[in-house]
């Protein structure tokens, strides 16, 4: 039994199953929700099996068709990929369950949601496991295109406008990234990450390639000030799609960035470049939070909160230079997991609230003790993780980032983390206080179970992950390009 568990390429199935299901869902729309649920459950199982294999036997690579790099396609299941797969598994399972209740059979949207979402899922998982620049490009394109189609799903003018901007940003980003890949391929004749990591020289060409690829990916991951496309696209999409876009999709280009900076170009990237990304991250945290504080609509508030949270991920670049590398690495990856779960849950709750109240204007939402009040409390539970309150996974992640900032002596970033936490509590509190405001409107009907339980379960998982962060934290470092101990002490 163990032999099978430890040698079977479980991670490959996380790509194949959603891909097959996407085709099936397209051909037999009637059975699409069923295919979606079965896919979701099996992907969750395969992710668990992958985690178990990495836990016992360490990171591993899979040659598709048995061809070695640079000829064949290599899939790498290492710690960073695993955390991404965990996020994708948890978010994907929850959103799939929710979507079966959200889209009805009569709904035209359901016809397209399932094939697109399953394709997106396969592309995401493939991206997380990809080991070369070109595969990363192809999968990233698939992710972006299926996301854009999903964002336009409900066909409203706002959604089409959002999707259009998304498309524009996505195309520009791809172009820039592909240019960088071409430069590298021209100079070194390979796109394999591991091979490149061994051969890349820190010269002008490498720097130019890194800058081009980074710029493209920044646009795709919507780092401040390139975030202009994100709030309209995320806020106008149907809620299950928003949950996927914010919880999962923005992390895809992020992983590529991490792989490039820490595996392929560790010596090319200068401290100045890293600090530039760090400062943009700080800008994102503060600007995104301030904008979230000013929004009048719930979904826009949550979307701007994503802009802010993306900023935290970019603190990795300055913080992971030097002895605090492992601490910052683990912190950021746990934050990706925590943010994925909490943000997806928040968007799903938004969906339920919008469905119940008929709108998502903050001024019109109040509901102590009623149906809305209960939904808002679930939102608050997800917010506990988002803000980083103990004992949630968000707290553990921020604790590690604070530790890294102190060890690295980067007080500037420490202050931003602290300020960002306070601002986040501020915008979350705007929603939370609504849960306690007495409602004047007539009581609303109770939402169906399938729209209530998945987001609640996901936020509970996000909180409890804080108490079970030990193994994920250790696994994050399996095969990671940084090393060292996780919690640093500096006793002279």
């Amino acid at each position, binding site marked *: 039994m163990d032999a099978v568990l430890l040698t079977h390429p479980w991670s490959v199935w996380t790509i194949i199953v959603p891909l097959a299901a996407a085709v099936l869902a397209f051909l037999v729309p009637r059975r699409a929700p069923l295919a979606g649920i079965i896919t979701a459950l099996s992907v969750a199982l395969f992710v668990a099996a992958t985690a178990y294999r990495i836990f016992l036997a360490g990171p591993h690579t899979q040659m598709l068709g048995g061809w070695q790099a640079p000829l064949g396609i290599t899939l790498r299941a290492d710690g960073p990929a695993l955390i991404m797969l965990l996020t994708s598994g948890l978010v994907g399972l929850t959103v799939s369950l929710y979507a079966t209740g959200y889209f009805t059979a009569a709904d035209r949207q359901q016809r397209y949601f399932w094939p697109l979402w399953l394709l997106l899922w396969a592309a995401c998982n493939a991206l997380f496991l990809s080991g070369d620049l070109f595969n990363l490009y192809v999968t990233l394109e698939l992710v972006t295109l299926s996301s854009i189609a999903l964002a336009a799903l409900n066909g409203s003018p706002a959604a089409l406008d959002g999707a259009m901007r998304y498309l524009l940003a996505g195309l520009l980003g791809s172009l820039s990234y592909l240019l960088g890949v071409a430069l590298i391929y021209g100079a070194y004749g390979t796109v394999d990450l591991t091979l490149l990591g061994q051969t890349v020289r820190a010269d002008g060409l490498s720097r130019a390639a890194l800058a081009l690829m980074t710029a493209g990916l920044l646009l795709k991951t919507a780092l401040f000030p390139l975030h202009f496309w994100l709030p309209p696209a995320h806020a106008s999409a149907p809620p299950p799609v928003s949950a996927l876009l914010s919880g999962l999709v923005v992390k895809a280009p992020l992983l590529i960035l991490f792989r490039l900076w820490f595996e392929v170009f560790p010596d090319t990237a200068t401290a100045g470049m890293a600090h530039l990304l760090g400062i943009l991250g700080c800008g994102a945290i503060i600007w995104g939070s301030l904008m979230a504080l000013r929004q009048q609509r719930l979904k826009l508030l949550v979307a701007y909160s994503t802009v802010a949270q993306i900023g935290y991920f970019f603190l990795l670049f300055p913080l992971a230079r030097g002895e605090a590398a492992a601490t910052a690495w683990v912190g950021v990856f746990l934050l990706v997991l925590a943010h994925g779960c909490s943000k997806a849950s928040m968007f799903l709750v938004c969906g339920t609230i919008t469905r119940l109240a008929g709108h998502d204007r903050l001024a019109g939402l109040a509901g102590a003790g009623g149906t809305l009040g209960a939904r808002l409390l679930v939102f608050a539970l997800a917010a506990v993780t988002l803000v980083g309150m*103990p*004992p949630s996974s968000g707290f553990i992640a921020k604790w590690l980032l604070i530790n890294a900032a102190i060890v690295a002596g980067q007080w500037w970033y420490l202050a931003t983390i602290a300020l960002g936490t306070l601002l986040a509590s501020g915008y979350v509190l705007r929603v939370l206080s609504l849960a*306690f405001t007495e409602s004047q409107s007539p009581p609303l009907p109770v939402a169906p179970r399938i729209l209530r339980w998945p987001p609640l379960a996901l936020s509970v998982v996000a909180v409890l992950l804080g108490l079970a962060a030990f193994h994920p934290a250790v696994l994050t470092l399996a095969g990671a390009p940084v090393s060292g101990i*996780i919690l640093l002490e500096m006793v002279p």
Partner: protein
Amino acid sequence: MSWREALPVLIVLSSLIPGLIIFTLPEERQRLRTALNLGGALVKLSLVAVLFPFVYLGQSFVFRLPLLPGMDLVLHADALSLLFIVLSAFLWLVTTLYAIGYLEGSPHRSRFFGFFSLCVSSTTGIALAGDLISFVIFYEMLTISTYPLVVHRGTPEALRAGRIYLAYTLSGGILLLVGTAWLRVIAGDLAFVATGILSALDPSLHPSLMVIFLLLILGLGVKAALVPLHGWLPLAMVAPAPVSALLHAVAVVKAGAFGIMRVVYDVYGIEFAASLGLLQPLALIAAMTVIYGSVRTLFQDDLKRRLAYSTVSQVSYIALGIDVAGPLATIGGLVHLVHQGMMKITLFFCAGNLAETLGIHKISEMNGVGRRLPWTMAAFTIGALGMIGLPPLAGFISKWYLVLGGLEAEQNWVIVVLMLSTLLNAAYFLPIIYRIWFGAPPQSWPRDRVRADGRETSLLLLLPPLATGLLVIMLGLLAAAPFSPLQWVQIITIREYIP
């Protein structure tokens, strides 16, 4: 997991699990909700009773859950945690009874009691936390779980108080978190050990340790309502009376005071902290808070606001006792944690009864109310006299040891502060007592609820203040009896001072 590991966890879970179940209950399941509440409170008290003899004998109960490599969530029971946990477990039981009576028929009770239980679980966690990081975790959980209680009424005023409460406590929480992380970086494991853990560190780190101390005290001082960080406390008065009672007697302000104890005694170590010169400034701030709080109290006509400012003043007795740095002052400070809790909860229960039974919120409306509510007002009088420090009530014992401590440490200004504060206490409580018993009652009360059975108010509202009022007398009279809080505090003090 052995039973020794399980016991601290079970003590936390005994209020957490009923709380989580209560959240899911529909509003009308009143019997089940009451059963869960009281069952949890009784289970908690009995588990604590099991713990008691073992801790007395100096045996340890430790539970560890690894959070990260090199960082555990630690629950452990030592003499100091037991002091706090007995207080919180007992007052939870009393306050739950009171709250059931107080909130009868009002909306959102499932939500209320759910968060109430979470709040008590966090307090228990604070008491049992075995290192500074675990303490911070529960301390922040307390912040989140009390917010819904403060804004429970949902009025704009309540929501505003809640916003200000969170603005203060979350900012403080961040400072505490940063201070803790920084200390973790330079000192490693932050387990609470009597006599402290930092004195062995390299002297070149002492400046950092002083800055960290400031961060930690700023974070803890917000909840302990040290001036000028006290602004949230008088506003939080909009909460229902049982919440105010719990907030002032054991949950929030005491969590801050308890945290200061842990930091001074068990992280820095009292002698090391004194040698760094950290205690003198803190003692001055505490003294200032004592006087400032008392002076502000004088001018409040709203009864709950007067009690709130009185808390600002009284809780700083604890900080004062810690910072005077001598065994006797320590005894006075630590025992005041229990004594103040008992007296203040009595006063808040009585204030709640006045509001609930007669619609009285202001002191100017209290003329002759002793004739209408003789039992309630008897309890109030005992609590108030105890606050003034009249022998043989509980407050006298605390003040006596604080004065002795000031003499012992040759810090005579402490005695002046205490005398001044006592005068002020008398000045703001005696007029109320005079009004209650000797004022001429008005023609009618603002909103009199005369009961058919002729009792002054329902038993659920009457018995809790009577019980705690009785304890205020007993804690003073029987202070020398074995296992009284005073005796227990002496055991703690010996362990803190003798390595």
